């Protein structure tokens, strides 16, 4: 059967729904535009997640507000008394190659290194990775384990909160539609080691089936402090507090780490999906918690 209408209009291939585009030069200007446009406007940082969502029409923004021209957001620096500051527009490869991170928190650079693939790491940003709030994201666990804070700037001013309190569900955070995540701060700390271990279904370019980050303070083989953060096993990254409690005040031993692993596995609430069953994820949490603790204890911030 055929129904034909004759139209002759030029036009080339388009793959994304249409939208307006703004590229302000300051955070304040960006927030003002976002406030003005309302919920239909989205912040465009790297775009590696957003463009895919737009292509599949999971998100149909009326406008994109690009952070491209806000150069101050792309810095990595250290401020005495405040900590190490990661600008939200830093790409993952900026973290991978950062001398400051290599000196202080190689674990963060390594976590960034395990993300996606080289091309995506050149475009995707720290802020984007956090605001997207994908449960399997690789940066949140290690940053939470290191007690990172995030700064959100809106038309009404700026607020700072622990990254741990930032996520509220898959794809959901506390950020308001007219706020911009501007920086992540890793505060100065006494931790002696931290690491992130990811288990994916391929060596690179695979999402985490499970990701486990650990940060510890160990003095004379006694664990003084421990933070364990699990990714991809709950709607948001979660702390394994029962496991942490079991560790603190105790001397390092295989049994202790094993027990922490079991407690972490019991505490998590994974789902079964195409990549793994809930049971297997729990097994991996147990194994990887132990491995990440061991590595953080033995090897420092790696």
């Amino acid at each position, binding site marked *: 059967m055929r129904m034909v209408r004759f139209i002759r209009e030029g036009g080339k291939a*388009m793959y994304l729904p249409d*939208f307006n585009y703004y590229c302000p030069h300051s955070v304040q200007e960006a927030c003002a535009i976002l406030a003005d446009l309302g919920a239909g406007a989205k912040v465009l940082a790297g*775009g590696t997640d957003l463009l*895919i969502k737009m292509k599949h029409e999971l998100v149909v923004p009326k406008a994109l507000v690009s952070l491209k021209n806000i150069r101050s957001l792309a810095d990595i620096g250290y401020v005495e008394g405040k900590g190490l500051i990661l600008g939200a527009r830093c790409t993952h490869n900026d973290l991978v190659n950062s001398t400051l991170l290599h000196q202080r928190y190689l674990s963060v650079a390594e976590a960034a290194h395990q993300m996606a*693939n080289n091309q995506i790491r050149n*475009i995707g940003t720290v802020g984007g990775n956090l605001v997207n709030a994908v449960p399997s994201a690789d940066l949140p666990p290690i940053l939470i384990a290191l007690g990172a804070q995030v700064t959100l700037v809106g038309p009404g001013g700026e607020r700072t909160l622990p990254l741990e309190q930032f996520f509220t569900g898959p794809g959901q955070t506390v950020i308001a539609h007219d706020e911009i995540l501007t920086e992540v701060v890793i505060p100065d700390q006494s931790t002696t080691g931290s690491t992130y271990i990811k288990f994916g279904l391929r060596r690179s370019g695979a999402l985490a089936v499970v990701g486990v980050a650990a940060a510890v303070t160990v003095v004379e083989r006694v664990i003084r402090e421990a933070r364990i953060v699990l990714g991809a096993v709950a709607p948001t990254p979660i702390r394994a507090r029962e496991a942490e409690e079991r560790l603190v005040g105790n001397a390092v031993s295989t049994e202790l780490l094993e027990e922490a692993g079991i407690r972490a596995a019991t505490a998590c609430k994974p789902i079964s999906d195409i990549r793994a069953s809930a049971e297997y994820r729990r097994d991996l949490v147990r194994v990887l918690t132990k491995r990440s603790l061991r590595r953080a204890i033995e090897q420092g911030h790696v």
Partner: protein
Amino acid sequence: MPEKIRFTVNGDVVEMAVEHHQRLLDVLREDLALTGAKEGCGGGECGACTVLMDNEPVNACLVLAVEADGREIITIEGLARENCLDPLQEAFIEHAALQCGFCTPGMILSAKALLLRNPNPTEAEVKEALSGNLCRCTGYKSIVDAVLAAAEKQS
């Protein structure tokens, strides 16, 4: 509403109007007729659309054309200079590091960015640099061999 952008493509300064929703890949392939970058998945998984942006490999399917404003783009068409193949292109031919050829432009550009940054990479570094480029034909062996050979020849 078309947006005017100005960027460098294979050494030429290009000023043009693009639609907001056009991806860098669309502009290169359709407006500039540079069809060497291929669309294999449209989702940043396969790397067939890889081009260099300020000498770093990116997926042209995940970059809006407007975001390329002010940047320097190199596509596979810009690699050979004055009819002289890049050493990587020569090495790919010499080592039979291509079969169907669909992944080849992206693969070569990822390797190019590596050699610009690191002229003497290890095998592991070569693999890491190519890990965002899928090839379903070669099993990768000849590709890794070719990149290592090109590095050696250059140094």
